[in-house]
């Protein structure tokens, strides 16, 4: 029977980071991926915050398949036909520890898994792990078929948002609709020159957009757009609870979003070449499974490591950081005498060291705040009405801005005190 020190299930960013860290620390490591190749089944918004590489792969930028480095952040509120936007232009953001870049998973995941292989991990693709293998009440490897199991001292679950192993390990109950959103994404092909011209970017620069308001047809959620080299990633994340309650198909929302004038302007003439959908863990710290057990650790989306505070969506960076932390925890546990639940508790310490758990805790209330309907229905429309009255000069008598705001606030139908409270809560939770 084949045997490894550690088996990592899933060669996405979390799994490859774990396998790379483990292999470097001298663990014989097996990295198992369900897709034909790493990234073949991967799905995400389109942007990666690069900070975890500073420590893990300082030379990452040399060969990492970066599409574009993000130099401009945009936030746009949409109503049915209008938009109100904020644009933050900062070339400095493309450099240093705070850098982020756009990427395509098929390329990025393949590159990252190769780094793990180069460090000595054994990568096997095209195999779906059905269950964990248990002996004496502890996890002792993975089970694929009756005559096809591989044993190990530790299994790292890096299966992504819909992980079945986390449930089978007894670390978490079934997903609840309120815990997940549905993410959809279209890859829209556009010539690189068109992207540069249209978005005002150089060959290496990229832009990121967050859309709020009617992007999600009033359902809780939002839209995003990232520029790749010769395509844009255009998508939505919408509350699955709302989708089922209001009986709306997400494709319908995506089509309306794509046809919105403010979005059309950006993707005009482009061709949709890829469509993907995925569940997005939405409650962050509020839905985390137990992160460790006897012979098992959970990393990345499988652990619910995702932060959506309304203006930044983070997943891949937390996945990578958690993979590294898992590798360090394994080393600490080995030094302490074995992969027991008690020794693997060290994982949480290493997560805190990278602010993964800290950030998740800090934004714990953001998902609840972002669940308020008013945020997606009432306020964007109100902002738009204010903007319209601010900028309209038609000789019918101009009002002072302050009066406009008060007037619009009154006609929005939300008590002023509640509005003030929303504003305060928003500032505190985001």
């Amino acid at each position, binding site marked *: *029977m*084949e045997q490894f020190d550690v088996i990592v299930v899933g060669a996405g960013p979390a799994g490859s980071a774990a396998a790379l860290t483990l292999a470097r620390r001298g663990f014989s490591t*097996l990295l*198992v991926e369900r897709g034909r190749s790493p990234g073949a089944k991967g799905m995400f918004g389109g942007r990666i915050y690069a900070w975890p590489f500073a420590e893990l792969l300082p030379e990452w930028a040399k060969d990492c398949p970066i599409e574009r480095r993000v130099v401009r952040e945009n936030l746009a509120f949409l109503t049915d036909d209008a938009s109100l936007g904020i644009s933050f232009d900062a070339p400095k953001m493309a450099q240093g520890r705070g850098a982020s870049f756009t990427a395509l998973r098929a390329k990025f995941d393949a590159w990252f898994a190769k780094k793990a292989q180069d460090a000595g991990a*054994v*990568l*096997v693709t*095209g*195999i779906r*792990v059905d269950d964990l293998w248990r002996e004496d009440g502890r996890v002792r490897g*993975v089970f*694929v*078929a009756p*005559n*096809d*199991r*591989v044993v190990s001292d530790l299994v790292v679950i890096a299966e992504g948002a819909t992980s079945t192993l986390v449930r089978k390990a007894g670390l978490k109950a079934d997903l609840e609709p309120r815990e997940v959103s549905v993410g959809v994404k279209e890859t829209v092909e556009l010539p690189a020159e068109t992207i540069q011209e249209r978005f005002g970017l150089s060959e290496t620069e990229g832009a990121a957009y967050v859309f709020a308001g009617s992007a999600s047809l009033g359902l809780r959620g939002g839209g995003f757009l990232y520029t790749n080299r010769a395509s844009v990633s255009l998508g939505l994340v919408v509350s699955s609870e709302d989708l089922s309650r209001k009986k709306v198909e997400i494709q319908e929302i995506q089509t309306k979003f794509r046809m919105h004038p403010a979005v059309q302007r950006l993707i005009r003439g482009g061709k949709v070449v890829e469509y993907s959908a995925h569940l997005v863990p939405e409650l962050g710290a509020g839905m985390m499974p137990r992160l460790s057990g006897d012979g098992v650790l959970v990393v990345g989306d499988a652990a619910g490591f995702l932060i959506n505070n309304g203006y930044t969506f983070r997943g891949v960076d937390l996945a990578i950081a958690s993979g590294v932390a898992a590798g360090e925890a394994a080393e600490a546990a080995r030094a302490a005498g074995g992969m027991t639940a008690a020794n693997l508790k060290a994982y949480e310490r290493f997560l805190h060291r990278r602010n993964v758990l800290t950030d998740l805790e800090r934004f714990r209330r953001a998902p609840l705040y972002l669940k308020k309907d008013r945020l997606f229905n009432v306020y964007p429309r109100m902002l738009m009405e204010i903007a319209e009255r601010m900028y309209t000069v038609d000789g019918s008598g101009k009002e002072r801005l302050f009066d406009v705001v008060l007037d619009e606030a009154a006609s929005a139908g939300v008590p002023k005190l509640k509005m003030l409270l929303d504003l305060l809560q928003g500032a505190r939770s985001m």
Partner: protein
Amino acid sequence: MTDGGTAGRPRRIVVCIKQVPRAQELQVDPVTQTLKRVGVPSEINPPDANALEMALQLKDRLGTEIVVLSMGPTSFDESLERAVAMGADRSVLLTDRILGGSDTVPTAYALSETIQKIGGYDLLLCGEETTDASTGHVGPGIAGHLDLPQITYVSEIRIVDGKVRARRTAEDGTEWWGTTMPCLCTVNFGCNRPREPTLTGKIRVKRGGLVTHWSCADVGIDPKKVGLFNSPTIVAKVDTVRLPSRSGQIFSGEPGASVRKLLASLVADRVIAA
């Protein structure tokens, strides 16, 4: 249908496979009328995959060593590795530039020499034919070179008293044949469902050392008997069948009269004789 116990089982089975372009993804170049092979994903020739599965089932039942053999460029490693990941014990690739352009005559010769070098075989299995050339020559050719009994178009094999019993597909039914080992069987396309590679199998491949490359010199193959210039087949011309465009016509009305009109029309178009 059962075997007669593990006594007299084949000690070693050699399965010959070829890597072919995946048929569903092949396209004909509209200008040159030839097959576009570049960039088309490959697979184990499907009848060869059935031969491999038949060998693996014998291994499951009786226990035996399976050696997979192929001849071609090193890109064939992909299929040989897949065969090992499915459960074969090891594989051999005969690879040499001087083999380029060989037709079925030198191929059968070169493979038979390689099989002799592998040695120790009791059973040789080949697919009935390849999906990219469809000659069905190579299996019988190997049997000829090695002077072995052969059973072609086999869909089932049992081992009874150290002998092979094989069900052979004939035009109007099936026949059961028996022969002594060593022998060669060519296996029917679609007679079983080839298994998927296992995790354990894929790990064995990654650990390495299970795909051996041999050159003609390694095997002792006579260079004067292989390659394009020693292949008697000449491809004089390749034609693409162009399907005639159809002109739909509906004959309605009284059935008898409609049928007469249809027949007259088919005769007029020379689809059928008068």
